[in-house]
């Protein structure tokens, strides 16, 4: 299923492509295995197993969508049974025709999907601005009121007496016929969610989850992303609801207990975040568990809760972490970062424009502290501008103002002839401004390659729908991003680690990942926040060469650093800050002999 999203790299993309097919197959093989098992079930089982299998498939239709919300975006949606309920009642009421003329079951299912998608977004609205507990609460609240409404709105839902579930036409009206329908739909939603997960949208979701600030700097718009997956997850849940109602043949509000919500949610956590196979196994295990331990059925929610606690406290990675054999192999301990700046010429477009980044009279204070007080700064294309000064002199704050995390209270910023609006960090990437962070902000659970690919998110052209359906433009995007990211990893000297989980790397390697990620944009301006901190002497020298090579391609570099040697070595211009004001500005030769700078900062 997932295989469709990963076409082989073409050999002319300067990428070693042998084994890409094999890698894609290895990814997809377990899913095909599961599908084959699902198709073989009728050979071994009776109608009882058809019921269990159907239930599993229906649950998975919901969980495959919810997985993008919980497992990828990291939003704790605990009340998704509400959307199942909504879908079940919408389908049943439309088919029963007790409100309006009866509708055939498949169109009714489609209408339910639309309704579910809309409510998926409404319930998700708090997640756009707030994290975790608020969203968990809004889904819980929604679950509470949907049940109340189903009970109280008797003219439509039948209240506590309930309503008949929809019946599917032949050949789906037998136990096994319906089973195959559900497995088919489950396969389709698996394919959809795998497409999203493996596209730039899936990576962006994880980036927002684990490194939100860095995600903004690469131009990822969190609200747009989340709304897209809330639509998808809501639609999946409602379709699952329609199928569920049919399986139940008759539905009352009692059928939709909160236990179901817990099952969906815990299946994902047991499976592991950022995985599709894990939650699939989790769903199967949790569906079967009460069946094989019938005396415990009454305690099933209690067992789920215990499982949840154990997972959280003991193995936060879930099943997916257990199955991740690739990242068990030890890494070489004596590895060195050897950048190859010369290779930049093949990857990064040469900049020709002469638009400069100019700051005039920028002022910003936090309370009574003037962090920056009337700062003028020019970064010219193709030049390296050093920004130095003691701790607390406003260097990082300046970077944050340029990249939009802080809105300056006074002054102007211009890029060429255009004003650069204050605030709005997510719009900087599109303007050609990339940056790194003082503490590397890298997604630990993603591979090094994926981390770098995130830097090129705004370069992708496929829309969410194209990615969802794995249409050609998405395939082109993926090929382009992966090829460029691999090439840039070669430039920064990390190509041997492309497929390793980023949280296994050393600090210095993370710094170079951030640089590669920033270069994915072909930036006009690159802001580096203490890139040499924590690097060895050799590594600092190589970093210097790399930065020089980047600026030689026409990129303007603004370098905040404490290593005076590096600054004086590679910068064309230097600005010295002290207490938010410019102490001195000029060429390295001028700064080196500037009296106040020497006494205030350099020493000697």
């Amino acid at each position, binding site marked *: 299923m997932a295989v469709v999203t990963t076409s082989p790299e073409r050999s002319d993309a300067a990428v070693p492509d042998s084994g890409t097919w094999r890698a894609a197959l290895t990814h997809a093989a377990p899913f095909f295995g599961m599908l084959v098992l699902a198709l073989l079930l009728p050979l071994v089982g009776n109608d009882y197993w058809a019921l269990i299998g159907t239930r599993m498939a229906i649950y998975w239709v919901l969980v495959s969508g919810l997985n993008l919300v919980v497992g990828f975006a990291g939003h*704790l949606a*605990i009340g998704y049974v509400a959307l199942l309920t909504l879908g079940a009642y919408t389908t049943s009421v439309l088919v029963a025709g007790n409100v309006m003329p009866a509708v055939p079951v498949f169109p009714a299912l489609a209408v339910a999907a639309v309704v579910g998608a809309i409510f998926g977004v*409404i319930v998700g*609205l*708090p997640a*756009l*601005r*707030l*994290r*975790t*507990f*608020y969203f*968990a*609460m*809004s889904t*819980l*609240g*929604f*679950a*509470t*009121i949907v049940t*109340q*409404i189903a009970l*109280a*709105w008797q003219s439509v839902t039948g209240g506590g007496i309930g309503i008949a579930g929809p019946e599917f036409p032949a050949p789906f009206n037998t136990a096994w016929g319906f089973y195959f329908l559900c497995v088919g739909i489950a396969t389709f939603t698996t394919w959809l969610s795998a497409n999203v997960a493996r596209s730039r949208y899936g990576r962006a979701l994880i980036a927002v989850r684990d490194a*939100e*600030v860095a995600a903004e700097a690469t131009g990822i718009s969190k609200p747009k992303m989340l709304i897209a997956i809330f639509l998808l997850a809501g639609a999946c849940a409602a379709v699952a609801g329609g199928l569920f109602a049919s399986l139940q043949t008759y539905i009352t509000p009692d059928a939709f207990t*909160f236990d179901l919500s*817990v099952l969906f949610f815990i299946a994902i*956590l047991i499976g592991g975040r950022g995985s599709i196979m894990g939650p699939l196994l989790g769903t199967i295990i949790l569906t079967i568990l009460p069946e094989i331990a019938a005396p415990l059925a*009454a*305690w099933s*929610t*209690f067992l*789920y*809760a*215990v499982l*949840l*606690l154990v*997972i*959280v*406290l003991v193995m*936060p990675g879930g099943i997916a972490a257990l199955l991740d054999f690739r990242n068990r192999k030890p890494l070489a301990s004596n590895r060195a970062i050897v950048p190859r700046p010369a290779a930049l010429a093949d990857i990064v477009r040469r900049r020709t424009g002469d638009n400069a980044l100019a700051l005039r009279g920028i002022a910003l204070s936090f309370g009574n502290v003037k962090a920056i007080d009337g700062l003028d700064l020019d970064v010219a294309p193709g030049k390296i501008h050093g920004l130095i000064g003691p701790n607390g002199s406003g260097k*990082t704050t300046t970077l*944050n103002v340029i990249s939009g*995390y*802080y809105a300056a209270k006074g002054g102007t910023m211009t890029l060429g002839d255009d004003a650069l609006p204050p605030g709005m960090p997510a719009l900087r990437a599109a303007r050609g401004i990339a940056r790194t*962070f003082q503490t590397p902000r890298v997604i630990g659970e993603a591979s090094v390659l994926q981390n770098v690919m995130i830097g090129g998110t705004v370069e992708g052209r496929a829309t969410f729908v194209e990615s969802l359906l794995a249409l050609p433009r998405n395939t082109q995007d993926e090929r382009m991003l992966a090829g460029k990211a691999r090439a840039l990893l070669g430039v920064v000297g990390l190509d041997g680690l492309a497929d390793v989980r980023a949280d296994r790397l050393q600090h210095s390697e993370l710094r170079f990942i951030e640089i590669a990620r920033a270069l994915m944009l072909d930036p006009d301006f690159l802001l580096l926040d203490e890139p040499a901190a924590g690097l060895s002497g050799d590594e600092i020298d190589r970093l210097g060469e790399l930065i020089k090579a980047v600026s030689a391609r026409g990129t303007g570099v603004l370098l905040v650093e404490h290593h005076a040697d590096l600054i004086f070595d590679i910068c064309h211009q230097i600005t010295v800050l002290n207490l938010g004001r410019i102490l001195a500005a000029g060429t390295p030769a001028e700064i080196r002999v500037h009296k106040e700078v020497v006494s205030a900062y350099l020493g000697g």
Partner: protein
Amino acid sequence: MLASIIAAGLASGAIYALVGVTYNTMFSTSRVMSFTAGQLAMLGGLFGSMFTLKLGLPLILGFLLTLVCCAIIGIITEFIAVRPVLKNLDQHLYVLSTLAVALMIQQVAAIKWGTEPQPFPRLLGLGSGVWDEKFWLPVLACVVTILGLEYLYRRTLVGRAFLAIAEDNFAARALGLPERNLRIASYALAGIIGGVAGYAGGELLLAFFANGALLNFYGFVPVALGGLGNNRGAIVGGFALGLFQQAANFLVGGIFSSVAVFTLFIVVLLAAPQGLFGGATARRV
């Protein structure tokens, strides 16, 4: 009609406010929003019903035993669901661990006391109509709790230590405050406040296991309205929510009053994410 709306609104508002204070009490010493808040109130009702009605204990003894049991549940929560996840607070694992404990409590309650609402004893037998005790008892409990908390926080050393930890955990520890013990104490206190809410509201809500999830949500709305950790905000928000809900109940009917509450919740969160009385956001970069 207006009188009954106000009476029912103030009564349910007082319960919501107390659950909100329960959230805040746990939050203040641990920075953890715990899903057990509503469950504690639910248990207040169930324990009260069990001790007084089933076991036939004297009113006062039953009440005290209820509070003790709730306090113990609060302490257990601290030990198994809060302490282990405090190390990485930024991963928000507490949402999951406290949810797990809340689910366990709810399931045990459902199995032990059944899934039907249980009767709650008539406590004093005072008043009728809009002056029935089931309306004014929760309000009285809320007022007494607020006064008690004010006394605790302003006049006692322990209370001031609570405030110190809520204000700045690191500085408080540097001063030598026993942070861990104070945290345990605050969870016990939260258990007691939740127990009071459930006990005082027992005649209104009955002893019903599903009240836990309901109060989790309706008790959180005032916290969201008032800002995390802000007791004054939670109390104002709680009463406002109760009145709003009852007014909506009267105006648009039972089906849509909960929709109205949910809409209010979403709108407030979108318009004022930090709550109407909340503070500024933390530094991100």
